[in-house]
């Protein structure tokens, strides 16, 4: 069953044509890994999926809900789509638990005690149960990103979107975040991940999508795309990141 069905997505920023008819279907429990050069539109595509960015054209169905219909309650629809950002974006004035429980209380309307129980469970899933009372400023980057993951999964979304979740981290902190993502995947979460962590992609991705200039150039299993890229642009890109 398809959780995400995006068809013919276009996005213009003024005169800039950033997405040029992108089709992306993500099956339940699938992990789709998106790569591509800077500026190719990876973040914009991800942000269109939960309508943080308004697509200029196309159709987006997530978990059976037409995301672009004016009749869709976008706040309700977004509960089903977790998002993790490169820069964590934790609320600095709230504790880790406060970050995780805000939407549980204000969006789902759970009573405080129940929200905290669920929030604590979400923190436990990213192995930060003992940091519940810490403020973001008191946590390492890796811990902050795991709190951000907990904040998203606490709402029990049908799909998780990750936009370069480890790019802002010191190398020694990347492992913990990838581990949390791997466990999430093992629990059957559907995921779309924009990242440069190729080793993670090889180990965990079902499918790799290569984007360039606002379009999907090539896609396939990690072995296919990394081991035997078909298009020139893909070859050039894989060669380039391979050298790092």
């Amino acid at each position, binding site marked *: 069953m398809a959780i995400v069905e995006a068809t013919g997505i276009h996005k213009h920023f003024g005169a800039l044509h950033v997405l040029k008819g992108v089709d992306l279907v993500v099956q339940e429990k699938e992990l789709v890994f998106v790569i591509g050069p800077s500026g190719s539109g990876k973040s914009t595509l991800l942000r269109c999926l939960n309508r943080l960015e308004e697509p200029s054209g196309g159709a987006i169905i997530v978990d059976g809900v037409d995301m672009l219909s004016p009749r869709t309650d976008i706040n309700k629809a977004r509960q089903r789509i977790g998002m993790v950002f490169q820069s964590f*974006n934790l609320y600095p004035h709230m504790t880790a638990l406060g970050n995780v429980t805000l939407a549980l209380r204000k969006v789902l309307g759970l009573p405080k005690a129940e929200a905290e129980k669920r929030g604590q469970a979400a923190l436990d899933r990213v192995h930060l149960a003992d940091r519940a009372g810490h403020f973001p400023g008191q946590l390492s980057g890796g811990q902050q990103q795991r709190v951000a993951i907990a904040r998203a999964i606490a*709402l029990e979304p049908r799909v998780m979107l990750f936009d370069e979740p480890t790019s802002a981290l010191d190398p020694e902190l990347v492992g913990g975040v990838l581990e949390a993502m791997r466990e999430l995947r093992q629990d059957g979460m559907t995921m779309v991940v924009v990242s440069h962590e190729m080793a993670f992609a090889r180990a965990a991705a079902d499918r790799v999508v290569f984007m360039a200039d606002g379009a999907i150039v090539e896609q396939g299993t990690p072995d296919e795309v990394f081991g035997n890229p078909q298009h020139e642009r893909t070859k050039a890109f894989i060669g380039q990141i391979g050298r790092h």
Partner: protein
Amino acid sequence: MTNWERFVDSFFNARVAAEYFPKIVEGFWLTIVLAACIIVTGLAAGLGLAVIRAFGLRVVNLLIIFVVDLFRALPPLVIIALLYFGLPAAGLSMDGFVCAWIALAAVLMAFSEEIFWAGITAVPKGQWEAARSTGLGFLQTLGYVVLPQALRMTIPPLTNRTIAITKGTALASVVAVPDILGAANAGVSFSFNPTPLTMGAAAYLVLFLPVVIFGRWVETRFAWKR
């Protein structure tokens, strides 16, 4: 009478002081009430305008900016005079207290709106996006995520601006409000002795010195935190 004795008799005349002390005290309380009215309504209106501005409606925002710039440009005394001396010509007359209240609240509204707005825009866009991505609505995001961070940043400039505008309550004396300065002026014209003004100045010090010190404390407390 030596010069010194004349000086003391003029500014520190015990008999005059005793006579007008109750009036000054009354003025003291009136100033506090006026200041409280201005602060509460001015800050509430300023915050309200900043919140409305956050909706990003072009025409509305242009209107807000116009009103804000208007009240930031006009000298407060001119606004008070317009309300007190001008409005009666249009068949609407208001008490001097109300005129001073409205005028200074409007000025505080204008300045505080700019400060609140600066605070709101200083909160990173990622905060909005993170909150909205979890399904929080616009107002929920503003209320639970953005404003708490924005207000923290605005406290030092807001405190200073509020103190500055609140001192403008002395202008109310021009429109016959018996606040501290009004009471002191009245005392001077009845006694032909400036001692009531000395007491007035002392009363202002008693009122505002703690506030200024509080402002200084707020400034150091909140300045570099974030």
